[in-house]
């Protein structure tokens, strides 16, 4: 009996876990309600691209997944409205050597990711 309970608990928990994993792509971002289903897909694709770039090229200093480095902003929503972001990226090339190299598409992907990602409160 105990064995059956253990197995069923394990099974159901993997199922729940699995469901969470598949849903995470959708729930990871806060996309405004008025955006059409089609465009939601595009937004999510863009965010995913931005996330990959961010992890490789930005996250080392601007920690949002990890600790980052002291004194370098960890982007919060309020810091990242797009105008502000454009300004930040324009700031001294020696501080933002990576951003300076990126194409406008890549920067756009990263900013979209930062703006739309959900932050745990």
């Amino acid at each position, binding site marked *: 009996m105990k064995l059956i309970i253990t197995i069923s608990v394990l099974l159901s928990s993997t199922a729940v876990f699995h469901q969470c994993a598949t849903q995470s792509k959708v729930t990871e971002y806060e996309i405004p309600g008025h955006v059409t289903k089609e465009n939601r897909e595009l937004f999510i694709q863009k965010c*995913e*691209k*931005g996330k*990959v*770039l961010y992890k*490789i*090229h930005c996250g080392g200093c601007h920690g949002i997944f990890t600790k980052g480095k002291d004194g370098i902003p960890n982007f919060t929503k309020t810091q990242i409205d*797009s*105008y502000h*972001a*454009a*300004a930040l990226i*324009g*700031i*001294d*090339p*020696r*501080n933002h050597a*990576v951003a300076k*190299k*990126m*194409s*406008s*598409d*890549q920067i*756009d*992907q990263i*900013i979209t990711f930062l703006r739309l990602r959900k932050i745990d409160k």
Partner: protein
Amino acid sequence: MKIFLVILILSAAVFCLSFNLLEKKEYQSLYATSLTEFKQEQNQLRITIEQSNLSDEKDREKIKQQIRNNRIKLKALDFWLRYLEPIAYKKINGPLPVEWETETFEKYEPPYRRQGGGLTLAELSLEEKTVNKDSVLSLIDTSVLALQTFEADSIASQLETHHHFFLANRLYLLNLATIYTTGFECPDTNDIIPELRNMLSSVKNIYSDFNTSFSSFPLSKEYLDVYYKLIKFVNSQPADFTLFDHFSFIKDFLNPLFRLNQQFINKYDVRTISQMDISLENDVYSIFDKKLYNSQNTKGVFSLIEDEKLLAEIKKMGKLLFYDPILSGNNKRSCASCHKPTEYFTDTTMATPFQFDQQQHLSRNAPSLINSVFNHLVMQDGKHIALQGQAKDVIQNPKEMNSTEKELLKKVMSCKEYKDAFRKFARYTPEEKNVSLTHIVSAITFYYADFSYYYSPFDNAMNNAFHLSDAERKGFNLFMSKAQCGTCHFVPQFNGVKPPYTGSEFEIIGVPEDSSYKRLNPDKGRYEINSVKEMMNAFRTGTVRNVMHTKPYMHNGVFQTLDQVIDLYDAGGGVGKKLMVDNQTLSADSLHLSKEEKNNLVAFIHSLNENIIFEVPPAALPVSSDKNLNKRKVGGEY
């Protein structure tokens, strides 16, 4: 005894520190005083306008004199204002009543509408037959309000360190080379050189106070010596801007000063917090270095790749694709069909290219791709922010190459050479793991961008000891003065990008439908993208470089010769040619250019032909597994 010594050292330190603070204030107080003086002048002007009768010629003259005084005081501040807060500056001395900003920020947000105000517009409105006192006053009020911005702590506090100074100085030097001698914001051309003289000597005071206040980061003696010589030179030149030697002014003085200032920026580890420096490079030592500013990222999705060998492979694929009609719906058109590499990457044989159906023609000329990397907005209406976007657009446009991403990728990947290469490249673009149209267009732009980095005899004359002929130099001086070319085609790219080189400008000049000037060309231009009346029939200003090789001219390719183009401008644009053009951004008055002047102008334009080394087309295109595709021709069929 020891205590005494410590106290003595401490007090000495405090003394030094306070002295230092006191000295620093000297530079800042010059800023504050100059602001106050200008403010007083503004108030005086306001009172004069209020008390005057605008229909009285005498009163109007009095106001104009007052505006002149205002401008002199403004020029003493220009050095700071333009750099610290350019948007507020436009309200103090903007050239246009309404401007649609197309700065780099537009890469992230739509255009902004900005209402101009201040002295230039007030002066221009006095020239009109019916002047409304309230509207003139409101222009001045706008300017009074805008000036308050510069007293804000957030702006004035930048003067506490040396950083802003060298960056503001860079902008100042670039503006001297591009707009301060051309009449860009000075409606009365008689005032251009006198105002310039005033400005140069005001900045001399700024320099001297800066050196006192920031003695650890001084302008060197070498710099100041060149600057004093510059003042001497300008004072010895004729006050008539058409006789002024613009060429020597830039070559012998501004370019050396620019070089020294860039050295200071590096030596003093100057850091920016301003969007004004977004495009400019720090390790470039001539205004005529093609790396002066950045506007396009030519590598696209491959931007973060640095392996030279891999980049060379990408470029090789880019070249093949450029010539490959596989990118079009019918496998008969390639990029090279309209941007012929043998014809300076344009098509000199047609006013506007064929449509996809090979029957009708498109409405716009295919511009040269050479130097397109120096535009912030791409296509003649500025529809795209990136070259890659332009390429995608043309490939998928039913009237142009008429392909789709899916179809195109299927065909491209059916060629083993492309497939192996792009699968490899995609491994280096983690955000786009599968080969996409983005990879294809990025390889293409990376290939053709190389042709934008060649120099012309004019650049060589500015950078080195190369001698220009008399006619060429005279032509340049005309370009910068009487012919009014330089007010839109800015040094050094001679395109619509002016310091700090962060946006592309659009102009309405009234281009006709055909060379008989029967009617205006109906193309709405920028209006298609930004539907506001100020943008109706507006087009992005193109470069003058290589134009000897890139006929036909204008957005619709209406003119076959440069003489026809000069004739349009000489007549005062479309309006001067009696066409109905709303909001023409060009004066409708004739330029009164003589035959000889026109010849000199053409001679100068000749000196902008770049010594480009072109390549031969690929001998063959990659073989496809689809036999039908292997019939395609290098460069396409039409």
